[in-house]
């Protein structure tokens, strides 16, 4: 062997896999946080519904609290958290 690899330091970035660029509730891009937060990422995570729509968790929780029926604001199906 002419050259051996002793170790490797990898650098990667992560982003959300969302079916849209923006949150359908607050209209902010998923790469940034909801209007109530200061930092995107773990502090302001995304959640997916059974209907496959996705929102900032803070946005959908706020929305569900303000509504008599627990429906997805995009497709009006009953909202269920999808813990895939």
């Amino acid at each position, binding site marked *: 062997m002419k*050259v051996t*690899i002793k170790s*490797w330091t*990898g*650098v*990667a970035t992560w*982003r*959300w896999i969302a079916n849209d660029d923006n949150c359908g509730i607050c209209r902010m891009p998923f790469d940034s946080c909801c209007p109530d937060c200061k930092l*995107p990422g*773990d502090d302001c995570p995304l959640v997916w519904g059974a209907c496959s729509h996705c929102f900032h968790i803070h946005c959908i929780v706020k929305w569900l609290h303000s509504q008599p029926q627990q429906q997805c604001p995009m497709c009006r199906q009953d909202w269920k958290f999808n813990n895939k």
Partner: protein
Amino acid sequence: MSLKPRYVNFQETWAKLKETIADVVALQAIERSVWNSRFSDVYALCVAHPEPLANELYDETKKFLEEHVSGLLERVKGSSELESTDYNDGLLHRYVTAWREYSQGLTYLNSLYSYLNLQHVKRLKLSDADMIYGSAAVTSCVDQGPRHLEIGELGLMIWETVLIVPLAEAMTLRIVSALNSARDSNPDPTTADILRTAIQSTVEVQSYNVRKPMSLYQQLVVEPFLAAASAHHSRRAAELLNARDVSYFMKYVLDGLEREISLGNKFLHSSSSEAVWTCYEQACVAAHLPALHAEVERLLKEACEDSPNASERREDLKRMYALLKPLGQNALRPLIEAAHAQAAKEGLALLAAEHSKDDAHTHFVHSMLSLHNKYKKLFAEVFGGAQAFIGALDKACSEVVNSRAEGESTARAPELLSRYCDTLLRRKGSERDADDKLSAAIVVFKYIDDKDVFQKHYARALARRLIHQLSASMEQEEAMINRLKAACGYEFTNKLHRMFTDVAVSSDLNAKFQQYLRENNLATNTGFFIQVLQAGAWPLGGAMAPLAPPAQLEKPARLFESFYRASFSGRRLAWLHHLCTGELRTRYTQRLYHINATTPQCALLLMFENTDAVRAREARETLELPEEAWSRHVRPLVEAGLLIAKGDLEGNDEETELLLNLNFTCKRTKIRLTCAAAPANQGGNGPGGAGASSESTHCDDDRKMYLQAAVVRIMKQRKILRHTELIQEVVAQARGSFAPSVAMIKKCIEALIDKQYLERSPGNLDTYSYLA
């Protein structure tokens, strides 16, 4: 003796009384029994039956005192020439002797007349309330009928009208001339005492006069003295300025001021000290401001030079400040402006001084710090650290820091300061005094207008340090961010904090990954460490080049990907190959070398396993690198001497070959191959020009966003606002991170009008209203 009112023969009683009071005011000895019976006589007259005789007694006493004082007047006059200014001609002396005798006698007389004072005079006096709140009576206080003063007060009034008035001019002439000569040489104690008592008497004689207690003193002493003093000082000052330079003049004037103040303290009433001072300042300083101001620039310049005269000039400036300060802002302004100009001039000269290009950041920060320290110390020494001069220094520093060299469109300060911090925070640059230096750098930071540009540079350098683990210490990194936060607030540093969080989360993640490997009986074969960063929080540039990693590296990468997918749902990883690095060990060389290289560089070296020559074009295609990235990665290998290029590397030449340098040698056994950052997304280490300009357009967009948000925020709250007020508020809000141009704010307002956030108020185009 009976206290009952009874008939009293006035003439008889008054005759006895008059005899005694003549002795009293002349300070002759009086037997106790005589005193007691005269005391009773006063009582008897005041309560006499059928009519009290108090008024008669009062009037006769007044007549007596007037005659007595007339006699004293003649004694005081003596044979003196009244118009003389010779204060040693005996007149003042006789006046003071008579005054001491008379004023002392009056206090005895006043107590002899206690009953009259108490019963007949008090009733005529004004109540305090009348004095304070005013009434018709107040205006006629002094001339409210004939018997409103106690006998002692009456005696003082008579002294004033009968004796002082005729002598007023003569006394003034002597007092003023005595004060004038006391200025130059101290009078002997007796003369001094006479002078002081004479002046004091003009105050005391009016002590009963509640409305204008000092009017006689003012008129007789203060006004003539100040007029004479003013003429004297003006003449001296003018002579002096003609004959000597400003340094001498200021020294003399300050000494004179001290003398003048002590003259006033010694002889005049304490209420006059301010007037004495003002008179002096006006005559000696205010009247000669242009002459003083004309020297300000020269004095400052010389005080700042490295010359033997400098300390003398600093003394001059101290004096100048002492003289100008009491005259207020207008008198001080030229001094403040010159101080500002001097500091700014020296600052620009310091920056322009010759220095090596590689050291531009150190040169910049050290120049600014030495400027700041020097002038802070100087202004503290000569101007007592007065706020106006601190302000002038701040203004000068901010101008120098934000100055642009000719042909530059933006100031280089943000980039240079960030480079300076980067050097100190890196392991290699670690010095024992790095902490102090970083603290000091904040001084410069505060003067930077484009703090947002600084933040971008700083964030990128921090990202490099964190990713490549170049930081000298994490405590030092955090301390620096906390300093920036203290200076600029949380908003300014929250992205930087975010990077720290990612680094901490990553080390956690690595531990979990290793555990995952153990539990599943998996192995990476090579050492493996990974940093998973949140996209958007790191200034890393956008597009990632696709790369087929060498087989040795593909395995650990895939393992980690599957671990990550299982641990975090809804997240996608992207590799930043240009930031990934491998540790290699050479085995084909005589010595063993440790090489730190980027992933593409590792892959390239691994291609030589079974051969010593590789076609460049083939290698590039295998690595799937675009031309531009290819050249950035391969150049350092060639420059380090590990590979030898045969032919043109950049072109598409089919024949170009890369040869493994089998005779490679190097002094160091650890070799770190760098890779220049991509030019479009990252200025980084690239040449200043291109990087800087893409930086400024990048910042422009952020600024527009910031300004639009600020306008909306302000208008949402204020609803209707005039154009100029809106601009002011926006500028105030932005100040912490940059100094916006009015033109840019206007553009943002226009954009918001187009987007229908705002409209111009109908009929008043100068005013905006918010559209909900």
